[in-house]
């Protein structure tokens, strides 16, 4: 299990995304790298932008098994379950489409499991994906 701790998230989304997708666990998932990059970016950008009034930390834990990768994001910001957010209606004509909520929508669509929990004052979002044979 790889554990990354970021003391500050304010204006650091890019840096944090690069660090997470740069880990051996993520970067070795060749066939799913695009998806993992996308999901990490969407979740980290949301935390960096909205979790804290000012600034705060983010812990990321990554566990890679032979056929599955699990990434867990923990922040100490205000309690927020992104899965309770209204998902965008992607069947509406484009002209009438709202532009919010696409990030979490893509996360839920792309991953096999997305679970939210609020534990000891922390938002804990755990995403899992079966990984395709990379050889």
């Amino acid at each position: 299990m790889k554990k990354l701790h970021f003391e500050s998230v304010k204006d650091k989304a890019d840096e944090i995304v690069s660090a997470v997708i740069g880990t051996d666990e993520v970067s070795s998932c060749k066939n799913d790298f695009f998806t993992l990059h996308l999901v990490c970016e969407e979740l980290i950008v949301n935390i960096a932008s909205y979790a804290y009034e000012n600034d705060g930390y983010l812990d990321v834990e990554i566990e890679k098994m032979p056929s599955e990768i699990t990434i867990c994001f923990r922040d100490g910001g205000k309690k927020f379950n992104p899965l309770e957010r209204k998902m965008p209606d992607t069947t509406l004509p484009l002209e009438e489409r709202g532009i919010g909520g696409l990030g979490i929508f893509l996360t839920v669509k792309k991953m096999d499991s997305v679970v939210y929990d609020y534990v000891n004052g922390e938002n804990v979002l755990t995403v899992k994906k079966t990984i395709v044979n990379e050889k």
Partner: protein
Amino acid sequence: METTFEVKQDGTVLNIVLNGQLATANAPALMEELNKYKNQGVTKVSFDATNLTYIASSGIRVVIFAKQKLGGNPEIEFINCNQEITGVFEMTGIKEYINFIKK
């Protein structure tokens, strides 16, 4: 990390060359650039995605913005769009509003 784009106007067509990524780091800047062409009779926005390898929801929002907010409901075109990016357009339900072209 390459995050550049280039916008050129050719009559009523906006040609946008995308490089590397269209994501949180550069999508807001592109949206701001596009905003300058609002209500100026743009009939088509053509994105050259030959060198685009990655798009995030912030990039999708740029495409929605071009369709919704430029005025006149312009045609949206993507040149040489890779499969993974096309997949994101499909998932978000905007694929049918885009003309995909191979050059």
